[in-house]
């Protein structure tokens, strides 16, 4: 039986499969055994209580959904008092995602969330429907550096940084986060998108813009994980379009140490458990003893020279 455990800095995950922030809550214990997950990831929390964005908050698209929730929540005090204890009932490490509009407040939140039952702080600096001055710092190298530097100074907890697929040069931003002291990178958040209804000419979402979520996007995010993995030393958690065990393998081959899952859990509430089971079976069938063997194991050197390469000589 394969050893599925992976190491994300100081944190050990029993397997590389975790939910994605915003797509999960302890309430999923109604349908699956949360103790089987690699980690528990809470929905992004802000300092103040927030209602979030106007409805409708989701619209189906050609091959997926766009959504814009607007980070609703009851604020950090309620979160620490009432929600952290809900997660503490389960064994996997708790990852707490935070967002804010200012760097100072991001740092202050990191400090305040450094309570015993929180295992990891995830900086959500990439909510796509916020602008750079609204906390979507992952669009810019310097904002990212400054924000993570400030957070790092205020917490000794492992600090993960969630990056944006909307950035043009994700490698520079990933490097900035690493330099500033991030323990791991989460790649990536959702793609800023728009849907217009042709019946009434209005944007389909109450908030106009939304984040696109779809298995179709996996090849884009996989490319980002691959590019970043070649340039940073810290571990990467790949998020985007994982719906089956082979997708976990593909992300790990590209250089990720773990994956996060949103959409697949909406489609099949039991998906995360199935994916963990299938991943173990997949490794066992191939004699893979430790799942970590897969990390970065893409065979991208000496690409098989096919006939075309030979042909090039002839031009």
């Amino acid at each position, binding site marked *: 039986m394969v050893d599925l455990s992976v190491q994300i800095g100081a944190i050990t995950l029993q397997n590389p499969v975790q939910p994605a922030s915003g*797509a999960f809550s302890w309430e999923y214990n109604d349908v699956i055994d949360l103790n089987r997950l690699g980690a528990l990831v809470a929905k992004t929390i802000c300092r103040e209580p927030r209602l979030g964005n106007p409805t409708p908050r989701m619209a189906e698209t050609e091959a997926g959904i766009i959504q814009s929730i607007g980070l609703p929540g009851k604020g950090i005090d309620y979160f620490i008092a009432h929600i952290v204890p809900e997660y503490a009932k389960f064994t996997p490490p708790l990852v707490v995602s935070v967002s804010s509009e200012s760097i100072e407040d991001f740092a202050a939140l990191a400090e305040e969330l450094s309570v015993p039952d929180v295992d990891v702080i995830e900086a959500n600096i990439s909510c796509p429907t916020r602008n750079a001055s609204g906390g979507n710092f992952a669009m810019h190298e310097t904002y990212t550096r400054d924000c993570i530097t400030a957070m790092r100074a205020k917490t000794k907890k492992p600090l993960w940084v969630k990056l944006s697929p909307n950035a043009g040069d994700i490698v520079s931003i990933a490097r900035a986060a690493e330099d500033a002291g991030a323990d791991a990178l989460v790649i990536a958040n959702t793609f800023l998108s728009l849907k217009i209804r042709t019946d009434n000419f209005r944007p389909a979402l109450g908030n106009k813009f939304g984040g696109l979520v779809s298995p179709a996007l996996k090849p884009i995010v996989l490319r980002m994980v691959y590019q970043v993995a070649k340039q940073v030393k810290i571990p990467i958690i790949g998020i985007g379009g994982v*719906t089956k065990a082979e997708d976990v393998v593909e992300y790990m081959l590209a250089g990720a140490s773990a994956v996060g899952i949103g959409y697949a859990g909406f489609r099949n509430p039991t998906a995360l458990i199935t994916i963990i089971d299938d991943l173990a079976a997949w490794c066992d069938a191939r004699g893979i003893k430790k799942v970590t063997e897969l990390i970065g194991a893409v065979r991208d050197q000496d690409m098989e020279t096919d006939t075309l390469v030979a042909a090039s000589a002839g031009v």
Partner: protein
Amino acid sequence: MAVDPNTNYTNAALRVGDVDPYPQRLVGEFIGTVVANTAVNDEYKLVVLKVHPHALTAYAGQMFHLLCPSPDGAEVWMRRPMSVYRVDKANGRIEFLYKTEGRGTRGMATLKPGDDFNIAGPLGHGFTLEPSWRNIVVLGRGVGLATLAPLSQLAAEHKVGVTAILSARNPGVVMSRDLFEGLGAKTVTVLDSDGSSAVENVEKILEGLIAENKADAFFTCGSNRLLKLMQRLGKKHDIPGQVAMEQIMVCGFGACYVCVRTFEVDGKRILRRVCREGPVFNMQEAVGW
């Protein structure tokens, strides 16, 4: 477990006869087998599924989240929530009454006997009956009747009398009437076609029932106009009430906050999740939509 690299969306949903690995869980993912899927009238269809017994714990007002087949070869990317129309414990069946609207319900309409249908649930909080209630009034319109119908089953179990006022565009509501009456409810049908569904007329009927002491509690679903009416009369006569609400959903488990509606509690406006705190809410707190 055999792993087919080409399989999309693996799942561990339970089929009839499967051993239940999580019997204690409130919610399951189930693959039901279609027994029948027939038109009830021009707009509505009823799908009957044979399901794993775990799914039969659903009670009135709860819903399932349905993975609809494709109507057109392209995938349907998100589940669709539907109230349970009827739980038939004796035969291990569950039924959904639905209106064919968009791609999801058009996909449902293609289901044939013997087909698989993946459903997740039961989800949410349904209707509740106070022990003190002897007679309740149910007022529903359109597909809202699908949500209210199982109330008659619940009420029958608790020996509570039901008067069901069924509002519709035209007489195509016969099916729900049969279900209500089959379980002993009295029904009143009001129609747009003869003007009887006008708010003033429905108000008169409700006032009559209140006067007869037949209205210990109000229940409604499917029409904002009728909700407002029941809220007004409920406030006036101090009659408690419950409303089942709808909203577009993603997760169904309370995680995503897509399905929120506005409520007014102690003069403060708050949001509640239809999938979690609902779909049935205190009628007086609902702001409507």
